[in-house]
């Protein structure tokens, strides 16, 4: 049952091929037996999950089941879950059990989904390899010596390892798309404001957006339909009514204009990765789409602008973690200053501290104009590139990440090299556009992701385009486990 997609589980449950309790129990068992290989979960809520699954089975039996009734999922540990520890991958929140749910958690619960637990992540979502987690790195199911990507590495790995068919995730600069690319999963970062940020621990408020990671576009459509929707508690929410994102999946892509930005195929892109992406573009041509050469001239400024804006916002967003009302407090503070300095010095990891300091620098007197203000101006130039491009094309495609998953530890000592992992994904966050990643082949044994960038609120079309590709190709069906299992079999 663990190979089933969400769409298949929905049908199976309704056709009474199995119950929610059965599939939930089986996945919980798998997590228990196998997750030590991947470290994709921080907290597993087995008891609660089984209770929810029982309730779902009753609803299914009664015939009034909501869309995702009984479907097992997992939540990135950045979403507050009432009564369940929400660590955000940090020692700072290792003991934090919120008495409230994030809107995303509430919405999925209303849709009937059954949460199995909370997935591992880079600390406060700051990282591209899941190595900054207080709970240790997540290992890539395709090769456990390699990173799963980040910051939603736990959600991506759990889906890739078939511990759960789909999971929630968040993306501030590529944190859904890059791990999806590195683990052969499909992930979607919606338009900024599509999904409520209420109850989602903030990293960079003007960039953060929640979305799904699943095995294919259709499942992402199912999850997004439940996650998105209006929420008055989030001022930056677009207050758009919930949509059925599965409605357009089967439309043809005949005549679709795909923009191919030359800047996404330049220096820094692994040649094999480039080849896989080019193959995918050819596949789209076969499906009747038209490729259009475009330019996004400010692409090389996206990373610099992002590493001013995101740390600046984070430096303020993370000030609330002060050891006073919740979370980590240092032992025996000598005075108030000591309480702050040590609680934060000991509670935050190195990367988080580094970003707070960078953000503090960018906002401080004398530097604001040269850094923060400048970055916000550049941000507008980057957005304008996209606005111009979407005047000519329907979607934009390119690589998600510059190369396949690297070895754990390879970039830990070089933050800047790590930051360049998100070189193709960051611009969409700055512009607030939706972006997605889907499997488009492998380099050696490691998966490669194709990125689709859509116009504002054009998620339905992106999912349609991705689904059509997945109808024509099998890359997304490939399983890490066949490799591991083959390796295991070979070893016997």
């Amino acid at each position: 049952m663990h190979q089933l997609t969400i769409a298949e589980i929905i049908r199976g449950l309704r056709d009474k091929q199995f119950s929610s309790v059965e599939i939930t129990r089986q996945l919980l068992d798998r997590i228990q037996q196998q997750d030590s290989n991947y470290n994709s979960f921080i907290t597993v809520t087995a008891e609660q999950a089984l209770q929810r699954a029982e309730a779902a089975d009753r609803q299914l039996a009664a015939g009034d089941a909501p869309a995702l009734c009984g479907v097992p999922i997992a939540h990135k540990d950045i979403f507050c879950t009432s009564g369940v520890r929400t660590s955000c991958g940090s020692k700072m929140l290792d003991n934090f059990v919120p008495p409230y749910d994030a809107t995303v958690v509430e919405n999925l619960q209303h849709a009937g989904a059954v949460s199995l637990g909370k997935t591992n992540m880079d600390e406060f979502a700051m990282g591209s390899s899941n190595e900054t987690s207080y709970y240790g790195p997540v290992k890539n199911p395709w090769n456990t010596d390699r990173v799963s990507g980040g910051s939603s590495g736990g959600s991506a790995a759990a889906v890739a390892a078939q511990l759960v068919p789909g999971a929630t995730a968040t993306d501030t600069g590529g944190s859904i798309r890059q791990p999806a690319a590195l683990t052969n999963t499909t992930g979607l970062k919606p338009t900024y404001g599509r999904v409520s940020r209420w109850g989602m621990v903030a990293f960079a408020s003007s960039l953060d957006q929640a979305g799904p990671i699943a095995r294919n576009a259709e499942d992402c459509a199912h999850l997004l339909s439940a996650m998105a929707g209006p929420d008055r508690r989030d001022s930056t929410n677009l207050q758009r009514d919930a949509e059925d994102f599965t409605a357009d999946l089967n439309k043809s892509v005949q005549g679709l204009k795909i923009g191919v930005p030359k800047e996404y195929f330049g220096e820094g892109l692994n040649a094999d990765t480039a080849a896989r992406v080019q193959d995918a573009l050819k596949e789209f041509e076969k499906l009747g789409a038209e490729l259009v050469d475009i330019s996004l001239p400010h692409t090389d400024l996206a990373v610099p602008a992002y590493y001013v804006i995101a740390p600046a916002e984070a430096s303020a967003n993370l000030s609330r973690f002060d050891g006073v009302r919740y979370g980590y407090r240092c032992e025996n503070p000598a005075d108030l200053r000591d309480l702050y300095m040590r609680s934060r010095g000991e509670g935050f990891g190195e990367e988080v501290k580094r970003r707070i300091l960078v953000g503090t620098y960018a906002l401080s007197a004398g530097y604001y104009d040269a850094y923060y203000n400048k970055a916000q101006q550049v941000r507008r130039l980057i957005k304008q590139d996209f606005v111009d491009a979407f005047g000519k094309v329907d979607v934009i495609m390119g690589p998600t990440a510059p190369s396949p998953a690297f070895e754990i530890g390879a970039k830990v000592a070089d933050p800047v090299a790590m930051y360049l992992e998100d070189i193709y994904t960051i611009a969409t966050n700055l512009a607030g556009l939706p972006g997605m990643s889907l499997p488009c082949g492998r380099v050696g044994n490691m998966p490669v992701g194709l990125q689709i960038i859509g116009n504002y609120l054009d998620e339905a079309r992106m999912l349609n385009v991705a689904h059509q590709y997945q109808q024509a190709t099998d890359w997304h069906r490939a399983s890490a486990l066949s490799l591991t299992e083959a390796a295991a079999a070979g070893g016997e």
Partner: protein
Amino acid sequence: MSVDAQTVEKLAELARIAISEETVEEVSSRLGDVLQLVDKLQAVHTEGVAPMAHPLDAVQVLRADEVTEPNRREEFLALAPQSEQGLYLVPKVID
């Protein structure tokens, strides 16, 4: 681009993050790397470009003035490292 130790200490003080003396040098050099990366921005012509704080040109929706939040003090205080008589406790605040 490098950041001197004094700057690091000032930033650490503003951000209330203790940085041990042994690591100041490493932090300075890493910060320097990041600042070198973002310094690319300085070369860009941005005269007349309005800074963009939000990706979308939306405006704020205001909330009606109603009390909607009940008292949940005990649930919240239970999360506090130290509390007494309904108050959060901190080392003495000196004005």
